[in-house]
């Protein structure tokens, strides 16, 4: 069966590009049955990866704190207004 482990580390851009290419190949209708099953599964995994990346949108805003020499020491929540 198709190996979908590497999908979990793909960036959103890579994942959606590959998903698009799978859709194109399936639309062409020239993929043999067995391979079409495999790439369909991979397409599903890619879709899940994309959605996971899209869901993981966190709106966290920090500011860099620096020491006297201007070297970053850590982060602190940015308080605006």
């Amino acid at each position, binding site marked *: 069966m198709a190996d979908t482990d590497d999908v979990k580390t793909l*960036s*959103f*851009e890579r994942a*959606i590009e590959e*998903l*698009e290419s*799978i*859709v194109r190949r*399936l*639309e062409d*209708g020239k*993929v043999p*049955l067995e391979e*079409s099953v495999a790439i*369909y599964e991979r*397409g*599903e995994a890619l*879709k899940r990866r*994309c*959605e996971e*990346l*899209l869901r993981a*949108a*966190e*709106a*966290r*805003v*920090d*500011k*860099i704190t*620096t020491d006297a020499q*201007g*070297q*970053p020491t*850590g*982060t602190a929540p*940015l308080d*605006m207004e």
Partner: protein
Amino acid sequence: MAKIAALTNTAEFSVTELSAALKRTVEDAYGHVRVRGEITGFRGPHASGHCYFSLKDEGAKIEAVIWKGVHGRMRFKPQEGLEVIATGKLTTYPGSSKYQIVIEALEPAGVGALMALMEERKAKLAAEGLFDAARKQLLPYLPEVIGVVTSPTGAVIRDILHRLADRFPRRVLVWPVRVQGEGSAEQVAAAIDGFNALPPDGPIPRPDLLIVARGGGSLEDLWSFNEEIVVRAAAASMIPLIAAVGHETDVTLIDFAADKRAPTPTAAAEMAVPVRAELFVEVTGLSRRMMLCWQRGQERRRTELRAAARALPAASDLLALPRQRLDTASAALPRALRASSHAHQRRFAQASAGLTLNVLRAQLALAGHRLDAAGERLSRCGRTALQQRRERFDALAARLQTATLANLQARRHHLAREQERLQRLSERSRRAFTVAIQQQRARIHHAGQLLGALSYRGVLARGFALVRDENGAALPTAASIAPGARLMLEFADGRIGAIADGEPSARGVQPQAMAEPQAKPVRSAPAKRAAKSSDQGSLF
């Protein structure tokens, strides 16, 4: 002093006092002035760190100095030819009756001067290749962490964060900096460098993308982003960098060094992330298309299968045709065999018919022809070769004959010449010989005459006789004649024998002495003559 003062009613100063008074007056009156002029004769910073130059306009010139500490803090560094507004105080220099302005702040006078400065700097940095298109990096499609270098307060960061939240909320790290005024350029550059220096998996997440942002403002307000230190930091950033400084129409040098220039901070946020909702729709759409495609593919396969199954013919139908072909073939087999053997037989007959002595004969004849032809060629060649040799021989013989003739001719000539020479020589020798003979003959004749004249016969002819012993030897002296010795007397007209008188004695001398007298009586005259002649003979 008071006395003189009283006399002239005018205070008297020492030079130092006067100079000090002037200094106080000038410094009091012009303790804080702003003066506009063009920098000229710029010298510095010196080793001391101070800068000296003059400020001038159309009508006047004033000496100016910037102390080291002030120069170090200056946002605009003084530059030859730059029109500036200098703020400072006037002071005098008592040592040489001079005054000057000590500048505490310097700003370019007007936009024109700043633009000129910026253009100059832009050309210089462009020449270094800092703005090359080849240096530009692509922005990540969906950055995880976005680093923002800007003021932590104000509209800019708010705009960015709002737009990011609208499109795709991300983790944002703000590096607070001053975006204008003194030290702001250094802070911005340090922030860019600082983000780049973060380790990839340290406690502070390293951004995938940087945004350097500032709101709109005057050229002077935005000037920090024209500073070399900021431009260089942006160009050197390994993290893709979007510059969003000022409004759309504002141009700063960091725009050229950045990987992407955004007209506004909001636009920078739009460039930084895609719209999350759109991506959701896109992913869902793709997934649905994928499913539909697959379903359609399955449906199509099913249809094809059904059609194929329907088209599959019955086994008996499949076998009927091959069966018929087999039958036909097996029926045709014996006939084909016969036909084949016939064909073979015919070929054999043809071949054997052709295999006769005629073939050999024809080959023999052919070989004979070839032999004849070769023999013909051989003899022709021989003849030709002989002919060639003969021709060569004839040519050589002709040459030989000619050469021989010429040689003979030459020899004949030579011989003729030699003969002629010989004849001449023999003629000469004959003549010479005759002459020599005659000479010799004359000499002989002469000698003969001389001989005749000198010969003893001449003496004999005058009547003397020569006495000889019986053996014919001349006896010149009487002493040599022994008595009784047989003598021979020679006269001119002949010889006659005689015997010396006296007895033959053993004594040698005496008988000889007596021999003459003995002989004398026999032939006295001849004896006398003989004695005479012997006397004369002794004369010889």
